[in-house]
């Protein structure tokens, strides 16, 4: 994409330095825990050691005796205000604090309010609870067996642990294609629980001002407006009407989906502030974060891929059990309880497909959507890319060749997939070819053959993924009924500078820079002259927030549309100033000039000034616009990743020798920022592929509930990522941009898993579930007589 603006203006395509950086490198960011208000109290939470137990008694006497402790809040206290349960974003219900029983280990049981952080911690440690353990259900397959204990005893009509059953696609056509297939491959794939673990944990400062009768909550949230509306709906009956609630999302230390749900801690802090009239701070510890906040993944998948001997893929069938923990607190669009999982036909021209997912309750923390997954697209891509690789190996075909043979071709776009998505644009073969060239694919295959002959284990894995982001068109997308548009409001000042506010909320993606660049592109006002704000519900226009890579596709589009409204008005003002007809004006970024008389021009700054000092009679003064953008479709970024691994036969360790990532996100706003997103996304793909897992023993005790065992890669484990790009603009997006924040996390795990299986295929290994840890690899090798 050619640059249309100068570096001084800094429109799309420029790698502008970030406007948000100056405060962060000075340590002057404002994160929630940085906020200190006069008289502020602190909240700490006592949590259940049991995964499933009846609460017999909560003894608060010792806690109340701790100096500095003011109160202990239990479920009984909240029940008086009907606040002990709250709705989830999937219209299920979740306990704020339990009255009868706890349903997962680390569940909130009682909250201590104190005058200092340390006193609150002492208070929480002094709470003693008598429990009566109940039978624990941790295996979702066992949860579905007849006779399994029914967990949601709070739902009177519930007879089992199935939350919902959802299916999509043509079952009959898929069955027929499977039956007629010359070859089918079947595989069970388990994608375990992981946790997003942004370096900043969740928390809030809730401040109910009794005089102003207003609640302000500084909160680690990716979706401040939605939170405000949810609070108003949930707590309206205690007097918290929506105009009396202000949610401020200040600087956020990473979100990745983990800061979308409403956690009990927020609600308790709000209740405590309303009751005391004092500011109340709640900041969770890392262990609380890992053990109680929204997890990601936990899909038990069985997939079947059918094709012909010549490598033509024909059909895909997937059944899945989705372990949601004790309540469905995922943050999916309401029509899609399994998110966008049905993008699982991937980059391939599959004619028939069918997907069935069963959501199940277990005694684990609730959630399901987080960790840069684009609403279950990580699960979908992992499945299809594993299956395609499995088919290639089964047929003895090169995995790149099999993909090339089956890719949707550029002339097929817009492409309607067998599961009903209309992919906007793509050139999958070009991306894969570029990746193969970059990594030297043919040479690597030769090297692999030589090494294999010497008994050395080397693997090459490919992932050619299609992402689906930008939720979403109002026809099909809503969260709790709120349609998934997003918004931009621009106001240009008399001296030609501007302020723009959005309904999204950056947690590191650089919106203060990238949105300014979009507006610079559209208006020719230098990006440095445009102040971008997000996150304060008192001032920002309503939006659904930032997650699932939706900011550029939706709010970015809103920015372009709003800017174009301004340009339309600016054209009228320019025509007035230059005394010509509007049609006689030519636009270039930053000015309107008269056709054939380029010397006769007005800059956007002159026009802005005129909007306040010399506007045409009959026109409103000022120069501002709002757009609430309802996307006509999702966007479909894509890419091809190739990973080379070497496996240590002695220790089972997998070393990622090289990783080439070619990404296509359409037109790029800031190449440096996009590259940064890819680096981070790849690292959050490496992590679940090789290191991270949160699991539970049969009593529901969490394993991997702290950074001791939940293994975030350091700079030593992380390879030096090699990135490149292709550019296939989105035909329906005003800027041709698609969004990219999660692509790398979606695409990378399969490339790594495929590389490991490729390295071990000749030994008879067909599949390895992630995380591919050294003991797992070691076991596969020793079982096959391979040792050092």
């Amino acid at each position, binding site marked *: 994409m050619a640059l249309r603006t100068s570096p001084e203006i800094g429109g799309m395509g420029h790698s502008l330095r970030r406007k948000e950086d100056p405060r962060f490198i000075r340590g002057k960011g404002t994160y929630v825990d940085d906020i200190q208000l006069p008289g502020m109290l602190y909240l700490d939470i006592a949590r259940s050691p049991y995964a499933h137990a009846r609460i017999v008694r909560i003894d608060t006497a010792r806690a109340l005796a701790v100096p500095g402790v003011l109160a202990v809040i239990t479920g009984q206290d909240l029940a008086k205000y009907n606040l002990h349960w709250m709705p989830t974003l999937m219209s299920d219900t979740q306990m704020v604090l339990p009255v009868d029983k706890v349903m997962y280990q680390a569940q909130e049981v009682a909250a201590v309010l104190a005058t200092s952080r340390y006193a609150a911690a002492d208070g929480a440690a002094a709470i003693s609870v008598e429990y009566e353990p109940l039978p624990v259900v941790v295996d979702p397959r066992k949860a579905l067996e007849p006779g399994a204990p029914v967990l949601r005893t709070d739902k009177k009509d519930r007879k089992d642990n199935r939350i919902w059953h959802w299916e999509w696609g043509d079952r009959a056509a898929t069955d027929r294609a499977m039956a007629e297939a010359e070859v089918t491959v079947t595989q069970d794939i388990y994608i375990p629980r992981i946790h997003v673990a942004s370096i900043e944990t969740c928390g809030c400062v809730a401040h109910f001002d009794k005089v102003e009768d207003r609640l302000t909550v500084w909160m680690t949230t990716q979706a401040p407006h939605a939170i405000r509306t949810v609070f108003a709906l949930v707590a309206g009956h205690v007097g918290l009407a929506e105009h009396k609630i202000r949610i401020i999302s200040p600087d956020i230390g990473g979100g990745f989906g983990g800061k979308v749900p409403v956690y009990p801690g927020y609600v308790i802090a709000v209740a405590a502030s309303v009751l005391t009239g004092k500011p109340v701070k709640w900041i969770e510890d890392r262990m609380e974060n890992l053990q109680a906040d929204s997890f990601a993944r936990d899909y038990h998948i069985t997939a079947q891929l059918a094709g012909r001997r010549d490598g033509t893929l024909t059909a895909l069938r997937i059944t899945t059990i989705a372990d949601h923990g004790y309540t469905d607190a995922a943050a999916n669009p309401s029509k899609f309880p399994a998110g966008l999982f049905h993008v699982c036909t991937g980059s391939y021209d599959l004619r028939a497909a069918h997907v069935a997912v069963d959501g199940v309750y277990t005694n684990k923390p609730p959630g399901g959507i987080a960790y840069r997954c684009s609403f279950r697209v990580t699960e979908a891509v992992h499945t299809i890319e594993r299956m395609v690789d499995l088919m290639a190996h089964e047929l003895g075909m090169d995995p790149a060749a099999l993909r090339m043979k089956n890719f949707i071709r550029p002339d097929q776009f817009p492409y309607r997939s067998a599961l009903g998505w209309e992919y906007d644009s793509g050139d999958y073969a070009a991306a894969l070819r570029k990746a193969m060239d970059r990594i030297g694919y043919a040479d690597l295959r030769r090297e692999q053959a030589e090494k294999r002959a010497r008994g050395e284990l080397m693997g090459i894995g490919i992932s050619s993924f299609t992402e689906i982001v930008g939720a979403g068109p109002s026809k099909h997308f809503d969260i709790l009924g709120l349609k998934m548009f997003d918004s931009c409001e621009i106001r240009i000042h008399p001296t030609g500078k501007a302020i723009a506010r959005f309904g999204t909320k950056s947690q590191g993606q650089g919106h203060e820079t990238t949105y300014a660049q979009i507006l610079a592109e559209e208006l020719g006002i230098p990006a440095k002259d445009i102040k971008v704000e997000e996150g304060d519900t008192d001032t920002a226009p309503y939006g659904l927030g930032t997650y699932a890579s939706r900011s550029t596709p939706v709010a970015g589009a809103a920015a372009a549309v709003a800017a174009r409204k301004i340009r339309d008005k600016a054209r009228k003002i320019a025509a007035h100033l230059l005394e010509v007809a509007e049609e006689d004006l030519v636009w270039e970024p930053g000015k309107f000039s008269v056709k054939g008389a380029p010397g006769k021009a007005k800059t956007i700054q002159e026009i802005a000034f005129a909007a306040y000092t010399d506007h045409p009679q009959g026109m409103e003064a000022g120069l501002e616009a709002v757009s609430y953008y309802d996307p006509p479709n999702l966007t479909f970024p894509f890419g091809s990743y190739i990973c080379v691994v070497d496996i240590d036969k002695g220790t089972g360790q997998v070393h990622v020798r090289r990783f080439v990532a070619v990404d296509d996100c359409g037109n790029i706003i800031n190449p440096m920022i996009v590259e940064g997103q890819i680096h981070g996304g790849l690292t959050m793909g490496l992590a679940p592929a090789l290191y991270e897992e949160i699991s539970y023993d049969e009593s529901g005790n969490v394993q991997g509930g702290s950074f001791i065992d939940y293994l975030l890669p350091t700079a030593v484990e992380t390879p030096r990522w090699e990135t490149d790009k292709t550019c296939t603009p989105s035909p329906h997006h005003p800027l041709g941009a698609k969004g990219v924040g999660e692509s790398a996390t979606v695409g990378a795990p399969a490339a790594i898993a495929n590389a490991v299986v490729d390295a071990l295929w000749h030994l008879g290994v067909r599949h390895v579930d992630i995380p591919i840890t050294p003991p797992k690899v070691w076991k596969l090798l020793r079982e096959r007589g391979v*040792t050092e």
Partner: protein
Amino acid sequence: MIPAAFDYHAPTSISEAAGLLASLEDAKILSGGQSLIPLMKLRLATPRHVVDINGIPGLAYVVESAGYLRIGGLTRESHLEESPLVRERHPLLHDTCRVIADPLVRNLATVGGNLAHADPANDHPATMLALGAQVVAAGTRGERVIPVASFFTGPFATALAPDEIVVEVRVPVPPPLSGGAYLKVERKVGDFATAAVAVQLTLADRGVCERAGIGLTNVGLTPIKAERAEAALIGRRPDDKAILEAARLAAEAARPSDDLRGPAEYKRDLIRVLTARALRRALERATAGR
């Protein structure tokens, strides 16, 4: 992540510290604090008294004298890691320092603390076993020398009396034709060992092994001295056959358990693999420059 309250004491001499430790009920020594403070933050340790020994002068040094490398008990791991003396003349020790926790923790963690805390997952113990080191302890009854082979008595338990502090660790200066290596498999940088092996060899002039020390990390309730593996090397040329035999015997000496780092049989096999690799590396170093 907030520790429980405690009384804080900051002695400025060894005798003051020993006196406090002898008289206070439920006291813990604060040295580097990189093991103690994390335990206190999780309230897994709630000592009534914390005796901060960091104010005692003259306990941080790395010198060679009278045939020993002498390391003060308060020597920070990073100091040991950066010491040219250790890097050049005690490669096994240098290898070990580099893989203790992470670089930031090493700026505070102390050698004395690493040994006294006696976490079977700590790295120095196996290395000190392989080196045949001595621990110098000081208490109310004066100083004494404890051979490291008798120092570790159980998980988180040592031969130290409640009033004793580790004031020095002594490592015999290895003779010529000596080499050592520490190989650690960890899930990621900063983790404890899934398994690790410390090897120190000395060859006689004819190339026969005349001394062998092999220590195993985190595959038992205490660090393990693989004595049968050591014995199998002494008096032999350390050729491939001897190395593989020693590796096999080291694996037999291991007593690992299943945990989140891996199953016991994996750890045992790691000991076999790592012992062989460490022996080869130690040999290379012993014969380098010959």
